[in-house]
């Protein structure tokens, strides 16, 4: 009985009268406290699956998180989006405190909580700035503070660093790991970047081309806590080559099929 169990999950999209099967008969179990990444070619259904766990998309099958069946979005499964989805009409602190405000918490209390998480991501002095004034990396940090502030059981991340440049991306990965290692929430992380997945995860699921199925489910035996140097280690490179070969197969299959 895992923390998250997906059974028989499927989703079909109608596009211009044609049916596109994103995922079919998909099963996956996550244990509590695991950091699991899903890597796969574009269009393989990994984001669709994540959205279904989040409760944003409905389809076939059952998804159970912490013994509750998923039927709609909720604060037990906090989501981080690739385009940050911050509210531009609210200041940084207003964004971070938003969930608490929506749940009826008083101003002084919610600002105190928000400030704590803002400090965690190192943006305390930008408290009163507006999202449009911040760089992409900073906005994603605000989004991270926002999702941590309401302390969800599980974190869902949809290629959160995809819109950032390579250097910022690496730094964000290190920051995320540091923060995550402090209380080890269960994380489901979607990415197309193998190095990113290896750096962050305990376990990597490789998706096939559409319709998405599990091609490989690998336990990553790299030591924790992980520092920047881990990327240079032999084991890291071995894993990367292994996964890359699998992924390449699927990328070519996806290309051929489209």
């Amino acid at each position, binding site marked *: 009985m895992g923390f998250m169990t997906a059974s028989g999950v499927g989703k079909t999209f109608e596009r211009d009268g044609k049916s596109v099967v994103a995922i079919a008969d998909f099963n996956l179990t996550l244990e509590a406290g695991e950091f699991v990444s899903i890597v796969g070619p574009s269009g393989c259904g990994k984001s669709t699956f994540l959205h279904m766990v*989040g409760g*944003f998309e409905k389809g076939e099958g059952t998804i159970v998180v912490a013994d509750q069946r998923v039927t*709609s*979005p*909720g*604060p037990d*499964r*906090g*989501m981080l*989006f690739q*385009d940050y*989805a911050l*509210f*531009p*009409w*609210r200041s940084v602190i207003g964004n971070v405190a*938003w*969930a608490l*405000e*929506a*749940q009826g918490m008083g101003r002084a209390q919610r600002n105190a909580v928000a400030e704590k998480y803002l400090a965690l991501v190192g943006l305390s002095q930008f408290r009163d700035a*507006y999202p*449009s*004034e911040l760089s992409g990396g900073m906005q994603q940090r605000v989004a991270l503070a*926002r999702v941590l502030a*309401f302390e969800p059981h599980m974190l869902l991340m949809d290629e959160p660093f995809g819109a950032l440049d390579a250097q910022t991306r690496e730094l964000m990965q290190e920051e995320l790991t540091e923060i995550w290692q402090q209380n080890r929430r269960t994380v489901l992380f979607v990415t197309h970047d193998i190095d990113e997945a290896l750096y962050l995860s305990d376990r990597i699921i490789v998706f096939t081309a559409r319709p998405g199925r599990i091609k490989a489910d690998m336990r990553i035996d790299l030591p924790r806590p992980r520092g920047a140097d881990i990327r240079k280690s032999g084991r890291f490179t071995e894993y990367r080559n292994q996964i890359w070969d699998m992924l390449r197969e699927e990328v070519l299959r996806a290309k051929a099929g489209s």
Partner: protein
Amino acid sequence: MNMPGLDNRHVRMAAAWVLPLIVVVTMQVMAGSDSAPRYVVAPTQIASTLWTLVQSGEIFVHAWASLVRAYSGYIIGAAAGVGIGLLCSVSRPLSAFFDPLVSIAYPVPKVALLPVLITWLGFGDASKIAIIALAVFFPTFINALYGARGVSQRWIWSARNMGASRARVFFMVIVPAAAPHVFNGLRSGLALSFIVLFAAEMVGARKGLGDLILQAEEGLRFDLMYAAIFSIGLIGFASDRLLLALRRRLLAGKFPGEARHG
């Protein structure tokens, strides 16, 4: 764009005055010649007439009457338009009722209904305020509705992810997110309210700038006519600037592109 000479901020500001200046100077020159038609009046004469009206206070009586009608109609129409427009984005039955009605009636000039309203409500302020409110409802409704419908799905997902109820999603996400579009509608509505006001006052009003324009024209007092036209224009312009200042106050620096407005 690099146009030498136009990069200087002061030169750009001065450029805005070129056309009005040409018109004013042309009028002044033409009015001086004997072959000028009666309706070409020297701007100096217009200014002098306007000054007389200001001194006697007469212009303020008319301006106030017009202003009360225009703003009353505007506020009623805009409140209804924005309120119902926003609600239609989240209520299917409401939208099914209003959306087709508005789409069909939008291109029909509401001013055409003036005789009907006058028959119902008389020649007084009520019919004028009603026609203005009716006209202003349409652009404010449409902009509010489409602004609300166009709110990014991501924001709504985020809000629901954070445990917001439907009501909270509406008030805390959809309403602020639709604000730029709502303001576009408010601005169109404001301009429309002065246009419709003028038409309504022309049909028959006691006091009011539109009435003054008509009476001046009938009495061949073209200087008076222009003075009144200028006054209505000035009030419209000032109202628009006020609205833009309000928009800037609420939205500047937040939404992309808003900092540059006004």
